């Protein structure tokens, strides 16, 4: 069991606390929020000792780890400070939006010997895990291409730091697109070159799309729209066939087609596999518990620090490409 402090009690920070309730791996005992009056009721209900000072929890010997649910631009300084205090850190996504910052974060963690976590809970979704299994088992043959689009309209009418151009220079690509960047790289390795474009319709940069060239030679397409009803598309295409996940964050159906050669006009021998559902809070819990077990040396963590730092480099390259209108090397 590790004892953790939640840092930032907006709606997503509260979800971390709810997800970990009664866990035997991680227990949230303290909370940090810069507007404590807003969250006092929640903290009372959850038995959290509330403070408005991050330094307080770093100085607390009864805290093993901090979970950062703070604006993206604060993540790296907070990781560096937590590392210096010997606390393990799980940070929400995106890890960082700048390559150099991402590297600074993992260097600090490595120097301090602490475990780094990242809030890409989507890796624990049933369909996403199943396609990863298929990738690792070689079921696709030679993988050519991966497509990912995770769109939703949850940001319409929402003010706050997530709307800020510095926190989200490429709109939805930074928000839910960040999950897709992580999964694309989890499946296909590091990205080498990106070409990104964003357009503004209802909100700034509410439509983003990216073509990707991976170091492995695989190609990719990533898109995110912030002003459309929820829609998820994740497809891996290889020389033996393809698999696709659709639905939403709890996607648990994988549609696949592995019939070589001629298939009929309606789409060929398509098969849909239904997996046990892992809902969003269960994914968050799985991630937080995997992180906690890794902190205690009980199991390997699903993410490496290098993967986290790489996503920061990708975000920076996409933002540069969208601003310049030219392809950019990661």
């Amino acid at each position, binding site marked *: 069991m590790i004892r953790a402090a939640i840092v930032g009690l907006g709606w997503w920070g509260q979800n971390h606390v709810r997800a970990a309730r009664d866990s035997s791996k991680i227990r949230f005992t303290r909370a940090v929020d810069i507007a404590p009056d807003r969250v006092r009721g929640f903290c009372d209900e959850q038995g959290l000792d509330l403070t408005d000072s991050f330094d307080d929890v770093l100085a607390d010997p009864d805290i093993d780890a901090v979970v950062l649910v703070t604006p993206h631009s604060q993540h790296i300084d907070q990781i560096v400070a937590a590392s210096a205090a010997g606390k393990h850190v799980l940070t929400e996504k995106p890890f960082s939006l700048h390559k150099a910052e991402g590297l600074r974060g993992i260097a600090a963690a490595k120097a301090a010997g602490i475990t780094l976590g990242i809030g890409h809970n989507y890796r624990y979704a049933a369909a996403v895990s199943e396609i990863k299994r298929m990738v690792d088992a070689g079921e696709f043959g030679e993988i050519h291409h991966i497509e990912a689009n995770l769109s939703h309209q949850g940001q319409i009418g929402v003010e706050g730091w997530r709307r800020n151009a510095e926190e989200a220079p490429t709109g939805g690509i930074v928000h839910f697109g960040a999950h897709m960047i992580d999964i694309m790289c989890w499946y296909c390795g590091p990205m080498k070159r990106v070409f990104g474009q964003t*357009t503004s319709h209802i909100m700034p940069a509410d439509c983003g799309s990216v073509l990707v060239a991976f170091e492995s030679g*695989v190609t990719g397409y990533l898109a995110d729209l912030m002003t459309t*009803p929820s*829609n998820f598309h994740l497809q891996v*295409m290889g020389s033996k066939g393809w698999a696709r996940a659709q639905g939403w964050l709890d996607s648990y159906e994988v549609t696949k087609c592995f019939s070589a050669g001629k298939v009929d006009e309606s789409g060929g021998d398509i098969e849909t596999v239904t997996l046990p559902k892992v809902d969003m809070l269960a994914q968050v819990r799985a991630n937080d518990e995997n992180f906690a077990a890794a902190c205690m040396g009980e199991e390997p963590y699903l993410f490496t620090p290098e993967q986290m730092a790489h996503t920061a480099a990708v975000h920076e390259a996409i933002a540069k490409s969208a601003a310049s209108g030219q392809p950019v090397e990661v």
Partner: protein
Amino acid sequence: MLNTAIIGLGWWGKTHVNAIHGKSDKVKIRRVVDMAPDKVRDFVSERNLELSTRFEDALADPGVDAVVLVTPHSQHTDQIVAAAAAGKHAFSEKPFALNAGEARRAVAAAKKAGIRLGLGHNQRFNPTVVEMKRMVDSGEIGTVMHFEGNLSHDELIDVTSWRYDPVEAPGNGLWHMGSHFLDLYAWILGPVKEVYAQAVDRVLERDSAQALLQFECGATGYIGNSTYTARSRTLTLYGSNGWAKMLSPTELEVCMRGGGASEIRTFEPVDIVRANMENFADAIAGRTEYRFTTDQMIHDIEALDAIAKSLREHRPVQVGE
């Protein structure tokens, strides 16, 4: 009744015959032409069609009103010009021409001769695509933000053919299946302004290729194609009011903002090859407008030219630059 000659009886030429022969009261196949007659003799004799080996045979036949060109892309323009000179209407398979200059030459010859041009981008007759266009034209989908689609199959991987010639198809599958989506995007959204494309060699040359598009109307688009995977077709239209996703040629899933759960709109199946040819016949007979304008035929090729240039130069390219 439009009397046609099918020129080229490869895989797709046979599809044309099977869509029309004995099934249409508007289009009749009067003869077929193939330069390798021994390979198609059984197919032709089973259907009791007249077979010859020279394109000129079809042009010289006074009983032929229109030629249907199911030939390599590079031959379309010369064949259209020859058909125009012979006073025959010409239906060309896609892509319409090898480059925009050739496309303009074909259109100019057709206009001068007063013949009609047809184009085999039959996805415009797919009922779910027709519904997407209706949703855009009526304002139901709102302002269009993005179109994304991938049309892939590996039915040609065992065929050593002109289709893999980099001159015939600089972006491989983007020219074959991808050009269908390019055409339908431009049909629904208007002209393409800028493209960025990439293609890689995995198992075969350029067997994975994609393009990102910007349209003059402000929307963006994506086309993906793999020529080495199982058949896959995805197509989603995103507008400011919601999205519409093709689930199959007869099923469109629609989800509107504030509208709760998505709904599935279903349509009667359409033989899109026959529908296109019959629309062409009706237009020639003056019964209706043809679904393609010659300006659109030229624009499709201008956009493909820009994609080819982007593939060569690894940079975004303005259409017509």
